[in-house]
């Protein structure tokens, strides 16, 4: 059982990071669909895997000054508040045995993440600073290696960004994910940050968001040490391999194939949910 969990963790981490969705997002579908592990334990394991993978990635991004710590911190107040609400909702859902709805919601989230496209720097333009830019000092510079130039940017529409972040945090607590995909939408499309900064900053934020959810899960007993420990270990290993290949594969058709696999998992989650209704 432990070995199977470890291998599943490696596969989930590999697929998740190779497709750029995040190493931990496939933990819950794998555990619930393949191992029939209760939703609460699977979500608890997913949260810990999200902390581990995003922290490893953020460690590199922060040192390269790609993550904007200030913008990240200004939004974490919202994600962590959302995480509290989400974890509370999850507890109520488990108690009323309404997990079927969580399966359906998870499937929908997975399907929307798959269809989401990352923008290229060529299509990015720095927005006009607004009131929140000045008030919250949402500015930064990073060195873009492929373009060989320093890129100066600023964040705008902080209030709207924070609102989306609250929703992202809620999904994290409710479904046991890092909700990095939605955070990237908020940073990229709402606040106007360059794509690389969005990804790097969201990795820094996911750890904190998932840790607040995990704290509530811990106290309520939704974390099974063996399952969470083994899977987290596997996901970290798998995500390392996936991230290594991610840089080399680029737009390789193999990635399209893997994305289709994830879409099928999403559909299976919805089917499972409908069955349980």
């Amino acid at each position, binding site marked *: *059982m*432990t*070995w199977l*969990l470890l291998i599943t963790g490696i596969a989930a981490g590999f697929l998740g990071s190779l497709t750029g969705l995040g190493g931990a997002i496939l933990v819950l579908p794998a555990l619930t669909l393949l191992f029939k592990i*209760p939703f609460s*334990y699977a979500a*608890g394991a997913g949260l*810990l895997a999200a*902390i*581990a993978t995003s*922290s*490893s990635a*953020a*460690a*590199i991004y*922060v*040192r390269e*000054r790609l993550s904007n*710590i*200030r913008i990240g*911190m*200004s939004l*974490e*107040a919202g994600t*962590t*508040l959302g*995480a*509290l609400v989400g*974890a*509370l909702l999850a*507890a*109520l859902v488990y108690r009323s045995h309404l997990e079927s709805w969580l399966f359906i919601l998870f499937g929908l989230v997975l399907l929307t993440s798959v269809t989401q496209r990352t923008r290229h720097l060529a299509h990015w333009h720095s927005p006009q600073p607004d009131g929140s830019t000045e*008030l*919250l000092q949402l500015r930064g510079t990073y060195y873009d290696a492929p373009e060989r130039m320093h890129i100066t940017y600023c964040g705008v529409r902080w209030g709207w960004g924070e609102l989306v972040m609250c929703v992202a945090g809620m999904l994290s607590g409710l479904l046991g994910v890092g909700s990095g995909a939605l955070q990237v939408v908020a940073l990229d499309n709402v606040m106007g940050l360059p794509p690389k900064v969005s990804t790097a900053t969201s990795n820094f934020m996911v*750890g*904190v968001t*998932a*840790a*607040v*959810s*995990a*704290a*509530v*899960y*811990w*106290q*309520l*007993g*939704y*974390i*099974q*040490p*063996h*399952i*969470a*420990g*083994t899977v*987290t*270990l596997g996901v*970290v290993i798998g995500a390392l391999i996936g991230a290594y290949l991610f840089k080399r594969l680029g737009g390789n058709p193999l990635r399209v194939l893997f994305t289709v696999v994830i879409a099928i998992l999403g559909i299976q989650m919805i089917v499972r949910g409908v069955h349980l209704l």
Partner: protein
Amino acid sequence: MNLERTIGWTLRLGVAIASVLIVVGLFASLFAAPVPSQNSASLSLLTWNGGVSLILYGLIALIATPFLSVTFCCIDFLIERNWLYVALTLAVLINLLLGLFVLPRLIS
């Protein structure tokens, strides 16, 4: 204090320590099958359960890692006397405390 370096090292060390504890814990419990009734609420952190305790400590290290980096941010903003950001980082830490101590009691 170089904030970027400090946070980078905190995150890296936190994940490393957690991974080592989990690996040793798994070996110490001889890769026993998970006992479904054993979970983070039913197991006490103070009583020694061999490998399972080590895994639990590893998981706690993992959860604590992001908060250590938030705490370092908070200290850095304090040194800069950037009060707006001190307040924002404190809000994150308060949310964590609410999640650990207040919320679970509200619903149980």
